């Protein structure tokens, strides 16, 4: 199983989903899209703290993969994978609170954007350093197995992040220790302003799987069902003690690195070409064509999402900024006698 395999659309037909499942996938992609659309407006109005990172055009990968997991599995998103933790139980409300820097946010305003996690939900917060979370997720999945829980860890990394030492060290280590890691490498053509061709001298990242003696797959990252079924399948492989797997998804970052970046360096035609492959448009069309959703179900879903986004914003706006003294708390789990911080207060 160690050659690179191009996972074809056939997979999508492997197993039928329930209607609820089909709708769930749409819901998750859409709620991320719509939340971010709204955040974009708020960002332009100068109301957010920090810059805004979007998943635009890449929602299928994060949602499809996380949706294929079991509750005991562990997930750590990278920049474009908000959908994955929403699937795992985080909420849009939390995200608005993060972007508004409120005390009600999961990090209490201490960190921003999608830098959140919750051990109980099985989510791990990423940090800004590319690649760093890959060994962490491998270790988390290992810990579950060590305790007799049949679980996998799902990590993401961008094409840019694959150049880091941590990518290599984590995959080699996970392979040797047979840690059940599923690593999705998101080849979205850009790492900030750097095209993939300046990031690496290969076309398919998945080829690197051979260097670790593990399976590598290439998928259409904009096809939520293809991603879902592939992850479902490799999960079985990984959970049974066979070690890690690389999945490369081909996709496209449809905006700048973050919202301060005007992405002038991205050729217009490339954006237009990929616009046609928008994962949400495509999936809605698929659902309709296959009579898996009715027009009114669609309208209701959209309404539900709009309402959720509206309420999330309202909640965040009405939440207080963190009390300053929170800056000083929670540095340690086992409280240590805190130093008086200011000499003049001694």
């Amino acid at each position, binding site marked *: 199983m160690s050659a690179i395999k191009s996972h074809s659309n056939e997979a999508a037909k492997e197993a039928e989903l329930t209607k609820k499942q089909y709708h769930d996938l749409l819901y998750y992609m859409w709620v991320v899209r719509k939340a971010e659309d709204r955040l974009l407006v708020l960002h332009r109005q100068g109301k957010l703290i920090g810059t805004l990172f979007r998943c635009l055009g890449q929602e299928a990968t994060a949602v499809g993969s996380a949706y294929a997991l079991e509750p005991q599995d562990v997930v750590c998103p990278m920049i474009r994978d908000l959908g994955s933790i929403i699937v795992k139980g985080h909420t849009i409300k939390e995200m608005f609170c993060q972007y508004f820097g409120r005390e009600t946010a999961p990090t209490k*305003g*201490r960190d921003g954007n999608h830098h959140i996690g919750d051990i109980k939900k099985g989510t791990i917060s990423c940090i*800004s350093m590319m690649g760093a979370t890959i060994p962490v997720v491998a270790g988390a999945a290992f810990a579950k197995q060590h305790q007799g829980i049949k679980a996998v860890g799902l990590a993401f990394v961008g094409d840019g992040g694959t150049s880091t*030492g941590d990518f290599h060290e984590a995959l080699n280590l996970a392979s040797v220790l047979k840690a059940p890691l599923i690593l999705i490498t998101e080849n979205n053509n850009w790492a*900030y302003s750097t095209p993939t061709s300046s990031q690496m001298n290969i076309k398919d990242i998945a080829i690197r799987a051979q260097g670790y003696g593990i399976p590598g797959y290439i998928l259409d990252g904009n096809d939520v069902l293809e991603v879902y079924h592939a992850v479902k399948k490799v999960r079985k492989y990984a959970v049974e003690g066979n070690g890690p797997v690389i999945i490369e998804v081909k996709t496209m970052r449809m905006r700048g690195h973050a919202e301060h970046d005007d992405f002038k360096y991205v050729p217009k035609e490339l954006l237009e070409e990929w616009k046609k492959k928008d994962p949400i448009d495509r999936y809605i069309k698929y659902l309709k064509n296959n009579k898996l959703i009715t027009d009114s179900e669609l309208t209701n879903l959209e309404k539900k999402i709009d309402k959720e986004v509206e309420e999330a914003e309202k909640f965040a706006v009405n939440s207080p900024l*963190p009390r*300053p003294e929170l*800056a000083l708390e929670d540095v340690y789990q086992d409280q240590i006698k805190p130093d008086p*911080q*200011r000499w003049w207060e001694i």
Partner: protein
Amino acid sequence: MRSLTYLEAIREGLLQEIKRDKKVFMLGEDIGHFGGPFKVTQGFLEEFGQKRIIDTPICESGFIGFAVGAALFGLRPVVEIQFFDFVACGFNQIVNYAAKCKYRWGANVPLVIRGPMGAGNRAGPFHSQSEEIWFGHTPGLKVVMPATPYDAKGLIKAAIRDNDPVIYFEHKNLYRRIRGEVPEEDYIVPIGKAKVVQEGKDITIVTYGAMLHKVLEVIKEKELADISCEVVDLRTIYPLDTETIINSVKKTSRLLTVHEDSKTFGPAGEITQRVCEYAFDYLSAPPVRATSIDTPIPQSPTLEDRYLPSNTDIKKAIRKILDY
């Protein structure tokens, strides 16, 4: 004279050095067409070409090591760390390779590692850190941090001409906020020289980086009108200019160190230690400090403001020292 922003001054220094010496080249992430997230190197690629302005993959250890190798064999690399926080990913190359070559095998490493650091921009724990201690405490490195446009230009030029590895910290919060007079001509600000930015006789305030501006603001406040503050801008963290500090403290007999870096094992201890070693008998109050707190750097405004030493903090410290 012309007035430039802090960022423009760095740009000009870099530009002049790249033009002056064809051994100088730059490498880092997104420094080419994109010009870096803060646009420090905008237009450089177009002017100097791909041989001199090199975009790299995301591999801090790799490209720092690469630059060390290039420095050993005749070039003068200037490495950009996109945010200085990420330097932790290339730490070994700096502290174990670059810093120790000269001592171990006599090979000098004319390398500059530069990039934005510092808090105040609501950028959170991974885009705000102060890392001068990690490097200032590693023998073999020189560490500078300009606070003004004039020094920014003079020190980047000095760093590039220096034959040892130099860590050049740019405070991102000053990039566009601070303007000042900068001569167009070639000049350098020597590494290892602090500057008395304002003379005074009651208290010496040692500081550097963004905190210089906070200190200068605070001491102008009405409440402190009766106090004559002498302000020393370190400019270089290592080697530390003991002489300038000591001379000032001998005059004022009081010391306050203000830094943005967190408190424990932060830079203030060294200043205080040296003042004790060289000028203990001149002290009429304890040498103390106003610093950030011992936590990661929080993002939200209310928290980040609590993290950093505030104007009130600095005022209270000055007052308490004077009232001692």
